[in-house]
């Protein structure tokens, strides 16, 4: 357990006192096994109580602590100090408005998530008293990966199309729609298509693939979006070229 002095360069912005963001550097004695979040907590407790950022679980499941670390979207609680040199730059997540310091706006993402109907719309109504639905391990596996999204929004910070076109529904929201579409218990795909197969839906994605590269939970949103495109395209051809085929 060796200790190392790290220069932590943090983007600061306080809307009440600053007209634009600026960098502030803190010299932090870090244990080698620390994560960047530990270093931030050290700053908060010992050097500068005015630094603001979000965190809670410290185990990469709550999705609070997304930020840019040396330019890469990362969870601060899973960015290990030993992977960095003595100079670490921490900035708020790209593509989101900065509220203060490392805190960015979440509202837009939540609204997008809500609009894809991210909940089970059951194929068949069954009262709770009739027991659980059947679902084979294979059927579960089909969508399981997409349930792992912790809503950390790193994929949005990585996706240039979201940066360029803020109306884009974006990787995590569409992946979540796909998750329910792929669930053997669900029958709500048609309802979700109205939103995700629109121009601002999946069609803003040009398969940059950055979302999947940065996703800390290996959800592979890029894959989900391409699958949604394939399925939506098949829908379109069926609808327009083979109108006699009922979906």
């Amino acid at each position: 357990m060796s200790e190392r002095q790290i220069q932590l360069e943090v983007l600061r912005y306080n809307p009440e006192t600053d007209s634009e963001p600026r960098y502030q550097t803190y010299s932090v004695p870090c244990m080698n096994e620390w994560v960047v979040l530990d270093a931030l907590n050290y700053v908060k407790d010992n050097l500068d109580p005015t630094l603001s950022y979000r965190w809670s679980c410290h185990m990469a499941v709550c999705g609070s602590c997304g930020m840019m670390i040396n330019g890469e979207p990362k969870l601060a609680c899973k960015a290990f100090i030993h992977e960095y040199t003595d100079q670490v730059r921490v900035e708020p997540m790209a593509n989101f408005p900065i509220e203060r310091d490392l805190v960015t706006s979440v509202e837009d993402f939540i609204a997008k998530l809500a609009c894809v109907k991210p909940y089970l719309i059951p194929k068949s109504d069954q009262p709770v008293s009739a027991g659980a639905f059947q679902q084979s391990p294979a059927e579960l596996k089909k969508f399981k990966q997409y349930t792992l999204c912790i809503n950390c929004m790193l994929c949005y910070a990585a996706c240039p199309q979201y940066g360029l076109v803020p109306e884009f529904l974006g990787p995590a929201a569409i992946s979540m729609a796909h998750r329910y579409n792929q669930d053997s218990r669900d029958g709500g795909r048609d309802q979700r298509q109205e939103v995700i197969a629109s121009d601002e839906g999946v069609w803003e994605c040009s398969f940059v693939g950055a979302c999947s590269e940065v996703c800390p939970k290996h959800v592979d949103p890029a894959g989900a979006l391409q699958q949604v495109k394939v399925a939506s395209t098949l829908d379109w051809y069926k609808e327009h070229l083979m109108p006699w085929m009922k979906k």
Partner: protein
Amino acid sequence: MAKSNKPIFWGLFAAGGTVTAFVTPALALVTLIAAMRYSPDMFTYDAIHVFAAHWLGKLVIFGIILLSLWHAAHRTRVTVHDFGVRADSLVAIVVYALAGIGTLLTLVYLLRI
């Protein structure tokens, strides 16, 4: 929000992407060798003509060219956007028109063979 009509073009783009991925490198290699005139009698009019004259050959050539065109056209549209040109409708008309003309010409030439 309404469902987008992008699937028409995206379908062609995706199919085209696959086709060009399989054939274009080899085709380009052939024309590259021809360009370097590696050996003058490597490209015989007869052999290629026989292939192109057969209806199956025509179909294959038509398929490859059509899909390559539409693949490239759609991706160009996106790429122009990525370079910061925000006139998507105009760009779309231009690139799809190019692809359309190319398709038409191909059809005409193939029928003449």
